[in-house]
């Protein structure tokens, strides 16, 4: 029982971490249907600038804020220069965002050097404690809480405000939305910036979790995020959350019970889901 709870809790934390990463992509890829391979680049920039200011100022909060600001700014630049000319064209999106990804990744090394940087959680989030026989790692609990927070805030914005509708409508038919008097360009830009900020934030949160950051981590993790968005059903926040947790927990359990397959968990999970439910978990057929 303790074993199960330990696995579940840690799997949940991993899931939340993946969700944080996928959340930005749910907006950008799931909602706006932009295949943004530079997402990983935003992730590492968030991580590096965040960690840099965290280590400089000694305050984790400052790190988080800086990461978010970096995300917003980079999102703005990315949207205006890179994405805007290629909305609606996946092929061009792949090429241009991959190019930009290379630039972002390599630029990290120019600014912060090529070495990996070690990061540890702030003092108040360090360590772990027992409840009964189940071990709780503080930083992971923090991640779980933050993940839920992000989830609820995003859900609120999407469901309770018109923004969500407008974005979805804008993806389907941009001209029509404009004809209805909506500045879709601005809306898209804002959404993109928020998505980027989420990527940057997750980069920052990821850093103390894995203990180190390095320039190449971006692409690796963004592929995982793509997987989660697709399993969840494109554009569905709840789907992404569910899928991320599923992946996290499946990883934990697979690693324990079928270690031989643990390398392939994500892939297997996605294969099974897509073969039996081609539209993803949280998406009505259509």
């Amino acid at each position, binding site marked *: 029982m303790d*074993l199960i709870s*330990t*696995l579940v809790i*840690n*799997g949940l*934390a*991993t899931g939340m*971490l993946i969700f944080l990463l996928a959340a930005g992509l749910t907006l950008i890829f799931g909602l706006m249907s932009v295949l943004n391979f530079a997402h990983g680049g935003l992730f590492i920039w968030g991580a590096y600038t965040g960690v840099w200011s965290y280590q400089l100022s000694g305050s984790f909060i400052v790190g988080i804020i800086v990461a978010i600001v970096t995300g917003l700014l980079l999102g703005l630049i990315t949207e205006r220069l890179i994405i805007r000319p290629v909305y609606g064209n996946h092929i061009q999106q792949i090429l241009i965002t991959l190019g930009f990804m290379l630039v972002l990744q*390599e630029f990290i*090394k120019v600014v912060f050097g*090529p*070495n*990996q*940087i*070690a990061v*540890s959680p702030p003092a108040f989030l360090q*360590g*772990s404690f027992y409840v009964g026989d189940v*071990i709780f*790692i503080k*930083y992971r609990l923090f991640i779980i809480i933050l993940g839920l927070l992000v989830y609820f805030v995003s859900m609120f914005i999407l469901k309770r405000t018109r923004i969500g509708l407008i974005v979805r409508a804008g993806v389907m038919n941009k001209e029509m939305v404009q004809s209805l008097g909506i500045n879709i360009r601005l809306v898209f830009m804002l959404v993109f910036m928020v998505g980027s900020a989420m990527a940057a934030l997750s980069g920052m949160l*990821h850093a*103390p*979790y*894995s*203990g*180190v*950051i*390095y*320039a*190449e*981590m971006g692409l*690796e993790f963004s592929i995982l995020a793509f997987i989660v968005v697709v399993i969840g059903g494109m554009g569905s926040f709840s789907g992404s959350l569910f899928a991320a947790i599923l992946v*996290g927990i499946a*990883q*934990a*359990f*697979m*690693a*324990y019970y079928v*270690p031989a397959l*643990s*390398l392939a968990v994500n892939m297997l999970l996605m294969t099974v889901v897509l073969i039996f439910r081609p539209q993803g978990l949280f998406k009505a057929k259509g």
Partner: protein
Amino acid sequence: ACSDSNDTSGEKETSSSTEEADGSEEVSAEPGETIKIGVLASLTGALESYGDQTKKGFELGIEYATDGTMEVAGKKIEYIFKDTETDPTVARQAAISLLEDEEVDFLVGSSSSGDTLAVTPLAEEYEKIMVVEPAAADSITGSEYNDYVFRTARNSSQDAFAAAAAVAGEGVKIATLAPDYSFGHDGAKAFISAAESLGAELVHEEYADQAATDFTANIQKIIEAKPDYLYVVWAGANTPWNQIVDMKVEDHGIKVTTGVADIATLPTMTALAGMEGFTLYYHTLPDNEVNDWLVEQHKSKYDGAVPDLFTAGGMSAALAIVEALKQTDGDTNTDTLMETMEGMSFETPKGTMTFREEDHQALQEMYSVTLEESDEFDYPVPVLKRALTPEETAPPIMNQ
């Protein structure tokens, strides 16, 4: 060994330089008077920092070995660095270009085992000596061995022997945790056999996804197996250290041990302070003239930075080559060189190394250490417990 005849002589004489890639600062003297060395390393990409260390170490090594003259036996030494980008295709292309266009006499490299394996057959084909540094895969001097390959780098088995020497003993229960790919498997397997030969008992063998972010299951299993020592083979990012500490492995009476790699990884091991392990190199550990020179020169040349793991390696490769040339009196005939180098001993920052005759693996010193917090840095540093002699960590011969 295989004796694969080659057919490149015809091409060689017609070889014209189609591209000028001259990375060395040296101006070559008259042809024939120059000895060229081609160095392959990951100068960009994920292993960039390794490549950078090799490069610096190699440069310093040549300087040291020639007393700054850049000449050996009256011949000028010229070296050319090429980037492999940690991509076997690029590595091979770069190697061909070095061998053909630059007509190098030696190859050195490279930062990844995959790149190195893509290149070693070329050494054989062109009948040139290749000094492998710092790739560690056992197969390079094992199943994929050829006569032209000499390795100054340690191989995974040596690591394992060092680790085993540090912790294993009669009746000691051990467990391993390693990433689930060649490097991890090589390392864990070698450790287990080394430890078992010292009388230890293996209670658990665990492999984790190298990209995993959650090691709960793996650590949980290890805790359940109740070993005395947990030997962790790890390289690259996504380190399990934090979680090992967070899950209070030590509270279960399990001592963690591992190899301490380059300086950049030390901060990730903060939580492991107090741990016993081993290392290949840390600038304060080896106590010899060469290392003193290296540390001093490196500091003055690079803003006070100290040399790192592969700096010493790169230097050793350079020292090996120059030493061989000294012994042949500048003769670059491959057979002569090979004969000379087999069994050759030479001084390096890590003490005396010897190329074993059978598989051309350099036997070398390793260091048994304790990670201790230091006042100087905000990360723990390895403190020497005992230098392990080359014989102690000699790996089995695997190329038969």
